[in-house]
């Protein structure tokens, strides 16, 4: 939950990058850390195993001036994607203000994507938050790989809820649409924070439009409830 400090003129928000193991959550933060001005960011902290798998979380603090007279601090976290670390994911999700769900676009990762998305919904529900209410955007990562599912399929599987989410085709290793994703979730949470129901039209739209037509091959969702 955001914290407003009128004495230091600071507002804090927490954004969590969530998704299955090896989907590229840490790579997102690494790219943001590389590309953002040094005066607007802190140190990237990674609590990882010797094999560079996230053990606890990655953490990157960012500052922005988006509300007049206030320094807005965004705290970016990743969760460990491996299934066994659910207690850690619950811990990192505590007091979250916005979520980027990072899906691995490869066909063989689809079941893990769906499982992780359900796990996100469950863990939010455990702290009395609804996945339909928390600012959330979808990131379809690894679009440069040869064996990726079409975006229409990913939309059908992961974005098939009543409320359609903004989604982005991302290549986190090169940075494609990494900032578009971050800006989208930041805008949504800022507008929720300022009690506005709709994101204004002036907000940059995702470069990849959300397809509205049904996929031609009519693939079945892995789990119809997702």
């Amino acid at each position, binding site marked *: 939950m955001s*914290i407003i400090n009128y004495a230091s003129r600071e507002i804090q928000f927490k954004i969590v990058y969530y998704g299955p193991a090896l989907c590229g959550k840490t790579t997102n933060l690494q790219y943001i850390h590389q590309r953002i001005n040094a005066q607007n960011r*802190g140190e990237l902290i990674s609590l990882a195993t010797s094999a560079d798998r996230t053990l606890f979380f990655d*953490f990157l*603090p960012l500052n*922005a001036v988006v509300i007049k007279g206030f320094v807005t601090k965004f705290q970016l976290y990743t969760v460990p994607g491996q299934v066994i670390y659910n207690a850690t994911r619950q811990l990192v999700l505590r*007091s979250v203000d916005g979520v980027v769900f990072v899906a691995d676009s490869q066909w063989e990762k689809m079941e893990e994507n769906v499982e992780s998305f359900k796990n996100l919904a469950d863990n939010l529900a455990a702290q009395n938050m609804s996945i339909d209410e928390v600012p959330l955007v979808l990131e379809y990562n690894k679009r440069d790989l040869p064996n990726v599912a079409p975006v229409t399929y990913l939309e059908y599987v992961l974005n098939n809820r009543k409320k359609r989410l903004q989604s982005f085709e991302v290549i986190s290793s090169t940075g494609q649409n990494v*900032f578009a994703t971050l800006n989208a979730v930041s805008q949504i949470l800022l507008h929720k924070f300022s009690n506005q129901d709709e994101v204004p039209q002036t907000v940059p739209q995702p470069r990849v439009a959300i397809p509205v037509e049904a996929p031609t091959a009519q693939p079945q969702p892995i789990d119809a409830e997702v």
Partner: protein
Amino acid sequence: MSSVPALTIEDVARLDGVLEAFLNKTEAEMTVVIDRGGNVISQFGQMDSTDVTVIAALAAGSFGATRELARRIGEMEFNALYHQGNGSHIFMNSVDEDTIMITVFGSRTTVGLVRFYSSSAAQRVAEILESLRQKKPPKLAVAPVSTGPVFATR
């Protein structure tokens, strides 16, 4: 129990009063009150604000992780943790079920003194935070948020 959404200048002054008195008694270097999500609620003492943000995130994680350890031996959680370094140390204690107090101290004081005074300081902080949770939050006096991109690349 819920977290504290807004702190007025008066609220921060009340918290600072408790934290300053605590630092004076213990001769610790810095103390930070955080929520268990890793957000900084209040801080007193000298340290770069970015470092404080990082310490808050790591301390919240550390405290949460040891809760599972505590459960294995029949405790709900450990209500205090101590990390001992060669010259600098960190003592963390639970304020309430949503809040933690972190104290960084060096060789000018001892963990016993910090532990002794942290108990009463945490109790006073808890009372202040509880009163904040009970009162109606102030209307947010901020200008409309920007509608452009929040972050840009170099």
